[in-house]
């Protein structure tokens, strides 16, 4: 696989304060990587450095195998990438003039520019806005124009700096779907910075989690979400239940973890006697109607729990329970109605031994 971006031993400082400390980072051709982190984690700074808009204090940033040393080289490399910011940052002109901007800067001929712009506007479903002044557009329309303005250039690397963050939920989802249809269809190499873990989950092949300027974990999206490397990543990626315990025994790869006088059975490589953190994602907790007869299930862990709270959480409901420790589960509206759940009632929560992730607590 061709590596388009390679970063080594990057340190970046603002006023002697280290804001980025990245030992190693790669972006490969065709990859869609989500870089997730909270505000102030250094995501946007990193993106500006990759777009050669900011010079790192130390370290090497190779773009297309080149480590640019002068402005001319940077300019040439920059013309093979495009970046979209959180704000649309449109120029005070028509939609056509905005979308054609980069092509004009590259001195392409008029007919070529016209065809490319029309084609791109069509892809983003904004052909009808072609003659509108940018200032009269709605937030969603403006961001569509901004994205079209970047993608019309057919960049080898597309850098997205939270392009949906300022939009309301329905607009955001619609635009995200449309953009990613194009990105997938054109096999567009994309680095998408976001603070929204759900967005990362939806859009990316791979995910990198950044905090305080350091990339803590990078891997396949599913594996990072299911196997967070430490407590911070687990918390950030939305593992709601994090329990501290100790492996008291182990047999055939199945660990018995003791937590608050409760026992959890977990499949893990960790050894007996180790102090651990058990991470349980709410979507992996199944709820069963409480009855005196123990249910027959393949799940190794079943607990009689008391419902403490039920709250709406977008499309799903979040049920918080006490089963000797606090546990949460996500269920659908249908399940909520069918089980007729009420606060204070008893319920059985069950978790498979394979869907609990253990972290070693050193």
């Amino acid at each position: 696989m061709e590596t388009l971006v390679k970063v080594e031993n990057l340190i970046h400082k603002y006023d002697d304060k280290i804001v980025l400390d990245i030992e190693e980072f790669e972006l490969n051709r065709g990859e869609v990587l989500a870089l997730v982190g909270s505000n102030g984690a250094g995501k946007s700074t990193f993106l500006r450095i990759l777009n050669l808009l900011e010079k790192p204090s130390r370290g090497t940033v190779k773009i297309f195998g080149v480590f640019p040393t002068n402005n001319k080289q940077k300019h040439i490399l920059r013309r093979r990438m495009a970046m979209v910011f959180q704000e649309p940052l449109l120029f005070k002109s028509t939609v056509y003039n905005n979308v054609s901007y980069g092509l004009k800067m590259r001195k392409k001929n008029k007919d070529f520019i016209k065809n490319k712009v029309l084609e791109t506007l069509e892809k983003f479903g904004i052909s009808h806005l072609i003659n509108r002044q940018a200032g009269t557009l709605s937030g969603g329309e403006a961001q569509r124009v901004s994205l079209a303005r970047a993608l019309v250039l057919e960049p080898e690397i597309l850098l997205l700096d939270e392009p949906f963050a300022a939009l309301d939920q329905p607009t955001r989802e619609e635009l995200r779907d449309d953009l990613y249809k194009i990105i997938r269809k054109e096999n567009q190499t994309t680095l998408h910075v976001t603070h929204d873990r759900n967005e990362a989950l939806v859009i990316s092949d791979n995910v990198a989690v950044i905090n305080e300027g350091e990339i803590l974990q990078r891997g396949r999206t599913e594996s990072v979400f299911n196997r967070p490397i430490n407590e911070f990543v687990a918390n950030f990626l939305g593992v709601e239940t994090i329990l501290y315990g100790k492996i008291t025994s182990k047999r055939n790869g199945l660990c018995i973890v003791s937590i608050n006088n409760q026992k959890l059975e977990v499949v893990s490589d960790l050894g007996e006697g180790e102090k651990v953190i058990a991470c349980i994602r709410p979507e992996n907790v199944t709820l069963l109607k409480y009855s005196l007869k123990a249910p027959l299930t393949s799940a190794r862990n079943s607990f009689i729990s008391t419902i403490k709270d039920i709250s709406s959480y977008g499309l799903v409901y979040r049920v918080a329970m006490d089963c000797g420790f606090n546990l949460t589960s996500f269920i659908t509206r249908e399940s909520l109605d069918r089980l007729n759940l009420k606060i204070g009632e008893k319920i059985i929560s069950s978790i498979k031994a394979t869907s609990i992730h253990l972290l070693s607590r050193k």
Partner: protein
Amino acid sequence: MDIFIEGIKQAIQLLVELNREIFLIPWRSLLVSGPSVLISLLIGMPIGVIMGLAKFPGRKLLLSLIYTGMGFPPTVVGLFVALLLWRSGPLGYLSLLYSPTAMIIAQVIIATPIVAGLILAAMQQLDPKLQLQALSLGANKLQLLWTLIKEARITSLAAIMAAFGGIISEVGSAMIVGGNIKGKTRILTTAIVLFTRMGKFEKAIAVSIILLFLSFLANFALTYIQQRERIYWKH
């Protein structure tokens, strides 16, 4: 009160008759102030753009100088240029004193800091991210500068109008370095001074009306463009 009414009546008559003496004066004014605005734009605009965007040592000192320059009293500028061009002065050999060129030199000195100062302010009002966005879309340094000037065009236009308004209505330097020679360096403002002194109020009023009209025209054009743009740009 008669002096007013009679003056205005006769002034209007002069204007309606398209009196040659009267109408040559604004033409001279434009011949001096037009090139002055153009030259001060050529000098002031790059200074304003660079000062507004770049950071370099000594920038603050330069800023203070520009801001001071924006308030230069035209009479003092006139004196300075007169000394430069005086027969025994450093540029005396050019024999430029009492010529339109001398007036242009003085007006450029007056207008350039105004242009630079206002363009500088316009640049600083732009979103700093716009610069990054233009670069990221592949603009080179020159294309970037042009993009930013275009983005700040309303305020830049204000700079042009302010410069024009400032020099078309100034009298101090024009009097000192131009000398108010009929048919050569007599412009609107110096003509008003002269006609008033001579008691030819109808001519003074006629010329004043033209000056007011020109000022109004410049401001009207600016306001029109600003308002038209405001429809699109609410902020």
